[in-house]
């Protein structure tokens, strides 16, 4: 027995009330093509309809902010006539199905966001989250995702300089693949995605259009996976054809677009991302308050018999939309020919329509030939800006109090601290060795340390001695216990990472990876997380200049732990010498900088630590976020390291912040890269070994007296921990391990888990 067919709007992901809204806008019924346009533009992925009301609470202003959220990328003024553009995005669901292409197209997409601003892409970072590696499918996902980022990023010619690597059961069918990109531009090359000038052309640059990713945003990014086995459970009919990345096309597109912008040939430019051509045309038109006529027959097509809705919503990769005056078109064509990039006039900027009530409305008209039949006609801004905003129900999880009461700090047995330490250490080198991290001769600190640090230089940029630093951070273990303080602490951790390379934090971008927004607990987590981020950014004077929200990360009805990923951008004013790094010297004194104990009820909380999680303990009370205890420490460490970067002589030989795995892991990491041990006299039990809360730094110095005096002068608490030397890591009588054992375990952990060795 067959049931009545699903109405079209629902098949396109629109609710009945959204259909009513559309009727209201148009004062008539939409035709099927129009409905398809609304379907993709009003999808969760494009419209942020569940999250927008919350994102408004994030601070986004700052004197140095040139472009805030809303454009392809946020841009700050870095000084010396240089702007830095930065953006982060997720490619979670595509990567679950085809890990190589999913990750590769994630890189391609984020780069287009950056060079659409006129910035030359200079760096990529890749925060990755997978299920446990005892499962073969998860191992396949890891290898596929990493090789996809490597394959695309290296070939397109942008160094990948860091990221994150987290394993947890909750990502098993739903890995998270976030990609952050940074670019730099001479500030006078800044470009925006705005269409203006009646009669101007909308020129489609790059690849031809195929059926790839039709409905990708609505089907994939805006819905969860049905079963717990990921791809296998996706309904075959709904499976969109997978997008395939072409880094070679993208490389030529970058060169062509930057040359067009350098020569001043374009009025506005925007990338084609989710929702493809409809998104780029309606957004540029809406921003410029103009109308746009699009001729679908002018769009170069890779496949035969494509329908209008397919052409308009295809997510074929490596395409850009440039707004160009008719006089400049031949010159644009010549630049594109040089780079072997296709350029076709697919749209005309037209006057807004004067409505009966006197208002003027820019209409997006889809036509069959510029003079041909009008297939769809809707207000551009209704697609781009007028999706309904939802304040979805929020509810604090009913079991949260019980979870918090189950605190491992109190009752978890101590165990064998040495064995615990060895179990916690993972060197992600197997991942980042696969990425070109050095291109453009900028990388002073590459992947594998606290933050990446690069010279602020690149083809076509004004000369500068400055450097920029980036760190991506997240902690789903913390955020599951307390999304508000967990997120705030994550921001603090990012600032700490920047401090280690001497960079002052200037801006934040974020990618909010959460579960199903129709679950009130998930909306509560999202809202709390936004509040935590806003609180931390306010307290640390950091504007949030961009972000991305990825919802419906779930499988079999289980939501992922809340996973806000924070990207921090910092500046080093003078970068002529490398920062200290982790390499300490025999005989150095070891100093803990910052408050030794956490803010909050428990001095050394183990809640949410790697140590507790490995033991299956996921409850407890997190440290609280208290900016007043952080700021002077961050400023002090930043200044100490920055003076070394500026070429000054210093007694400081090594710096590392205490983060995942706690103090024990930080010391073990330093020992294992230097192959020199350390002796720490006294610690407050295993809590102090493994507790995780940001705001503490391990500093090695050749002159403890002088260093401590400077710290005290800056009002920063310090504790003398011990001395560097020997072949063992001795920690306060709690554990003692050979450095060579630490190095071997840490170095082989990942390849061992992937069954590569």
């Amino acid at each position, binding site marked *: 027995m067959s049931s009545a067919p699903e109405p079209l709007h629902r098949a396109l992901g629109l609710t009945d009330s959204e259909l009513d809204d559309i009727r209201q806008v148009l004062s008539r019924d939409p035709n099927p093509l129009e409905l398809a346009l609304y379907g993709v533009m009003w999808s969760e992925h494009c419209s942020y309809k569940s999250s927008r009301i919350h994102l408004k609470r994030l601070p986004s202003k700052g004197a140095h902010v040139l472009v805030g959220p809303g454009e392809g990328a946020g841009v700050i003024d870095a000084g010396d006539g240089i702007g830095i553009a930065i953006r982060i995005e997720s490619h979670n669901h595509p990567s679950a199905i085809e890990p190589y292409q999913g990750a590769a197209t994630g890189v391609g997409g984020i780069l287009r966001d950056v060079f659409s601003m006129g910035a030359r892409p200079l760096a990529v970072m890749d925060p990755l989250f997978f299920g446990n590696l005892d499962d073969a499918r998860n191992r396949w996902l890891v290898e596929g995702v990493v090789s996809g980022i490597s394959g695309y990023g*290296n070939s397109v010619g942008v160094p990948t300089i860091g990221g994150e690597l987290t394993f947890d059961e909750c990502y098993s069918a739903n890995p998270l693949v976030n990609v952050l990109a940074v670019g730099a531009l001479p500030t006078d090359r800044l470009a925006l995605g705005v269409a203006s000038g009646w009669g101007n052309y909308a020129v489609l640059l790059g690849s031809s259009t195929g059926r790839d990713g039709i409905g990708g945003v609505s089907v994939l990014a805006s819905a969860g996976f049905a079963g717990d086995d990921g791809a296998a459970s996706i309904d075959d009919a709904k499976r969109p054809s997978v997008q395939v990345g072409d880094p070679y*096309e993208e490389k030529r597109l970058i060169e062509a677009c930057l040359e067009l912008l350098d020569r001043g040939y374009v009025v506005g430019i925007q990338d084609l991302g989710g929702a493809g051509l409809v998104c780029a045309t309606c957004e540029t038109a809406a921003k410029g308050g103009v109308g746009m006529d699009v001729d679908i027959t002018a769009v170069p097509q890779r496949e035969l018999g494509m329908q209008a809705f397919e052409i308009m919503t295809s997510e074929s990769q490596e395409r850009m939309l440039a707004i160009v005056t008719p006089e400049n078109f031949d010159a644009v064509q010549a630049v594109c020919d040089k780079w072997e990039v296709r350029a076709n006039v697919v749209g005309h900027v037209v006057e807004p329509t004067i409505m009966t009530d006197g208002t003027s409305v820019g209409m997006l008209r889809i036509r069959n030939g510029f003079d041909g039949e009008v297939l769809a006609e809707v207000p551009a801004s209704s697609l781009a800006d007028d999706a309904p905003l939802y304040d979805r129900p929020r509810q604090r999880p009913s079991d949260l109090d019980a979870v918090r009461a189950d605190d491992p700090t109190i009752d978890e047995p101590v165990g064998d601290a040495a064995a615990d330490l060895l179990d916690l250490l993972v060197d992600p080198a197997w991942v980042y060795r696969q990425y070109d991290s050095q291109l*453009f001769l900028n990388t002073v600190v590459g992947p594998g340390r606290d933050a990446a640090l690069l010279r602020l230089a690149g083809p076509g940029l004004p000369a500068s001695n400055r450097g920029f630093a980036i760190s991506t951070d997240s902690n789903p273990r913390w955020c599951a216990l307390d999304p508000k303080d967990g997120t705030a602490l994550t921001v603090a951790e990012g600032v700490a990472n920047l401090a280690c390379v001497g960079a002052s934090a200037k801006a934040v971008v974020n990618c909010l990876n959460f579960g199903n927004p129709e679950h009130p607990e998930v909306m509560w987590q999202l809202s709390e997380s936004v509040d935590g981020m806003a609180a931390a950014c306010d307290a640390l004077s950091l504007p949030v200049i961009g972000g991305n929200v990825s919802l419906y990360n779930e499988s079999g009805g289980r939501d992922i732990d809340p996973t806000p990923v924070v990207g921090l951008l910092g500046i080093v004013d003078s970068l002529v010498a490398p920062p200290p790094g982790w390499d300490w010297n025999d005989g150095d004194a070891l100093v803990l900088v910052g408050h030794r104990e956490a803010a909050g009820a428990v001095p050394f909380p183990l809640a949410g630590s790697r140590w507790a999680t490995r033991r299956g303990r996921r409850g407890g009370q997190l440290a609280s976020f208290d900016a007043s205890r952080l700021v002077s420490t961050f400023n002090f460490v930043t200044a100490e390291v920055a003076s070394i970067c500026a070429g000054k002589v210093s007694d400081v030989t090594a710096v590392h912040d205490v983060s995942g795995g706690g103090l024990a892991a930080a010391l073990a990491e330093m020992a294992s890269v230097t192959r020199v041990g350390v002796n720490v006299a006294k610690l407050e039990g295993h809590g102090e070994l493994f507790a995780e809360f940001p705001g503490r730094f391990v500093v090695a110095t050749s002159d403890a007296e002088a260093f401590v005096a400077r710290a005290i002068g800056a009002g920063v608490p310090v504790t003398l921990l011990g001395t560097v030397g020997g072949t063992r890591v001795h920690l306060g009588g709690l554990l003692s391990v050979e450095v060579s054992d630490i190095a071997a375990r840490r170095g082989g952990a990942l390849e061992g888990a992937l069954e590569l060795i």
Partner: protein
Amino acid sequence: MARIGVVVFPGSNCEYDAAAAVEQLGGSAELIFHSATSLGDLDGVILPGGFAHGDYLRPGALARFSPVMDAVAAFAAAGGPVLGICNGFQVLTEAGLLPGALQKNRGLTFLCQPTTLIVSSTRSVLTRAATLGAELVVPINHFSGAYTCDDETYASLVADDQIVLRYRDNPNGSRDDIAGVANEAGNVVGLMPHPERAMSSLLGSADGRVLLEGFVGVGAAAH
């Protein structure tokens, strides 16, 4: 001052880095687009790293048909110094200007890491200023860098002292640890490591200087 041409194929990405290195060493660098049919009046040519034509088919397979390659071949035949770095090395082998071929790395992954090179011959435009047996720390950055050739070719490489650089700890499965080779005359050299990325201690190593100094110096000597 030596005038060094740096060839830009679509998909090349180390052209600016190579040019910057040449200029740091007192040479002048000129970017030459792959469609050029003549090299003009240059003292040396560098084929830089990157992914010419996306490395589609095989690294270098499409690039060797670029118009500029006839001019490069003629320049090499006339004794002009030619250096292929990474992708440039792959292009030179595909074009038959250097013997052998570069296969995928043994571990089947891309590798970006520092390596220690041993100078195995100083009879080439790249290694002429280095000391035989010297160890140099220079990064590699490639997927297809395992040098391969048949036994006959290998025997003649050894006999004619054409193996100019070897890895101390072979990272990629190259035959006999080969990191760089020259043609018989020593004026055409290819290597997988990136000497232009090892030009200053700020970026980790300055050991690439002695190699590129030698190369740029040949060009200068031409004046």
